[in-house]
């Protein structure tokens, strides 16, 4: 492509923040190691130099304090962005998130707004064990009052960040470590795509069709989208045409796009790196089943992380993670076996 400007998700996130910070003096960023270091995952690089210490603040390791503070600042007219370094650390600060950030708009009958973005890293696959590798999509999406997004590529990363920063509601922005484009966490090439320089929004709550297909719908988010796309290429050689839906947002959830796709293909696989039970995969399947999408040709399947803590040892972790092979196997079975009437 001419004038192609491929960015990593990390750079796309930083660019979106910088652009909004130029326009809107109420936007400021705080978190651990986000200033001088530019974020452990690189997504705040350059912000300190441009905007200075008042607006780009390294915090103590006091998540419940600074996330609670973000809620207060948001209610008082600021638009804070806070980073929870790993989503797994939500345990030490969840009250500020789900009892304050997510409920104060409702409890105040709308006379308080809480326009803030909480960005947090997700995902494993690099042997960091179960306190640093979870996705927890379902845990956040389950609780009402906060929007939840997670990009699979740099274009969406920028547009979703801009939209999140302009939203009058709290947004949980989950970025997958394996997609950040930080070499030390491996690099998923498909995540680094062309990103326009000018500011733009991706509407929160709108899924994207990442690949068109007619035999089976594979619904996923973030890293799962790349696994789904890889599986779809393999399936193509089998003569199975897979459609890949990238949810991009979990709250609000674009149920229409999912239903329309499954209505067309008649088959549904959900790929979710979060735990199998009580999560996104179940929600997507329910979305399809409870509205009686007619003509399901096979029972829906989910390729999710088993309901066990994430182990350190590579062989054990890789055994548990969703991957293209597992998706391919499921799709092959589904496309051969029809559901008996």
């Amino acid at each position, binding site marked *: 492509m001419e004038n192609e400007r491929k960015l990593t998700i990390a750079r796309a996130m930083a660019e979106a923040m910088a652009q909004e910070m130029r326009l809107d003096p109420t936007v400021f960023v705080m978190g651990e*190691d986000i200033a001088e270091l530019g974020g452990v995952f690189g997504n705040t690089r350059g912000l300190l130099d441009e905007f200075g210490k008042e607006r780009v603040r*390294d*915090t103590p390791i006091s998540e419940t304090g600074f996330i609670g503070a973000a809620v207060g600042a948001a209610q008082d007219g600021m638009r804070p962005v806070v980073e929870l370094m790993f989503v797994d650390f939500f345990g030490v600060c969840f009250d500020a998130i789900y009892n304050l950030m997510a409920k104060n708009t409702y409890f105040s009958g709308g006379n308080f707004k809480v326009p803030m973005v909480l960005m947090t890293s997700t995902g494993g696959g690099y*042997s960091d064990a179960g306190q*640093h590798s979870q996705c927890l999509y379902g845990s956040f999406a389950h609780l009402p009052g906060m929007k939840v997004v997670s990009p699979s590529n740099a274009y969406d990363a920028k547009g979703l960040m801009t939209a999140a920063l302009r939203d009058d509601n709290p947004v949980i922005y989950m970025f997958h470590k394996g997609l950040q484009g930080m070499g030390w966490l491996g690099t998923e090439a498909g995540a680094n795509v062309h990103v326009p320089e000018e500011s733009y929004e991706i509407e929160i709550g709108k899924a994207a069709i990442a690949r068109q297909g007619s035999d089976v719908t594979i619904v996923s988010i973030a890293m799962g989208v790349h696994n789904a796309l890889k599986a779809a290429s393999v399936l193509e050689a089998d003569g199975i045409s897979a459609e890949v839906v990238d949810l991009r947002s979990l709250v609000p959830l674009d149920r229409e796009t999912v239903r329309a796709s499954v209505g067309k293909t008649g088959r549904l696989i959900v790929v979710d790196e979060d735990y199998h039970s009580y999560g996104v995969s179940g929600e997507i399947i329910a979305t399809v089943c409870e509205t009686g999408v007619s003509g399901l040709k096979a029972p829906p399947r989910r390729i999710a992380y088993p309901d*066990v*803590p994430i*182990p350190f040892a590579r062989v054990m972790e890789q055994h548990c993670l969703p991957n293209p092979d597992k998706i391919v196997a499921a799709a092959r079975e589904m496309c051969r076996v029809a559901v008996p009437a």
Partner: protein
Amino acid sequence: MQPTKAELGWMYRTMVISRRFENAIEKIYMEGKSPVFNMADGPIPGEMHLSDGQEPVAVGVCAHLKPEDIVTATHRPHHQAIAKGVDLKKMAAEIFGKASGLSGGRGGHMHLFDADVNFACSGIIAQGMGPAAGGALSRKLQGKPGVAVSFIGEGAANQGAFHETMNLAALWKLPMICVIEDNAWGISVAKSAATSVQKNHVRAASYGIPGHYISDNDPWKIYEVAGEAIERARAGEGPTLIEIETYRLAGHFMGDAEGYRPEGEKDDLFARDPIPAMRQRLLDEATFNAADLDQMESEAQSGVDEAIQFARESADPAPEDALTAVFA
């Protein structure tokens, strides 16, 4: 309270074991990670937080502990585990993610657990505090001997769990000691940029308990102050807060470019490396002669070599083992 000759020998040997262990891990960690450094690769994947330079804290405190005493450690746990007597072979194997590891490869380097010596870890900052207090409470309720020590970093003293637990331990007069390893940095953030007081031991006043600060990473001084605090806890007089100035000679984790360090800081720290310093003092005070110390060092090295070899030669866990041991 001064360490005996035997205790000094144990302290020195244990510091050397810890350092040699870290040196070995550091080298092996880089296998398979060049020219491209990807954490997922090599015989030891994942994050790696080395404890080089912080050995005096571990030995000065653990010299007073028995296997029955409880230690909770952090994401940087190797020196503490070694000093507490965690089985070095099984620990090495765990760090390699092998079936013969402490937890069969489920935990890895940030999650070392050895029930035989009451040692546990958490990779979540300050989350060793509550379990240490609970262990101390349990000993009190059961009338069983033993104290609990929670090691944390200075960055962890800004976490709610630290303050809540200190208050609880003080309120209930629990046999607990909180040892803060002040290595001046929490990843890239300097202590002075993160902490409202210069030294954390002053915070002991807010719980009405004794607080001590030890400067210069001094094993003798650490031994003395920790010994008194542990004695106090054993006597039922309640908790103590100790902050110890120590040195992080390595990066926060392996792969850390350490661009945030002021120029010359590393050189200065290396010049104050506590292991050569302790060796020199042991010689100066004629506690041991050079031959004694050389022998301790070579024994330490063989122990480490054996552990590493055991880890290398051990089998990987079966992949499906991931699905076991979720429940008791």
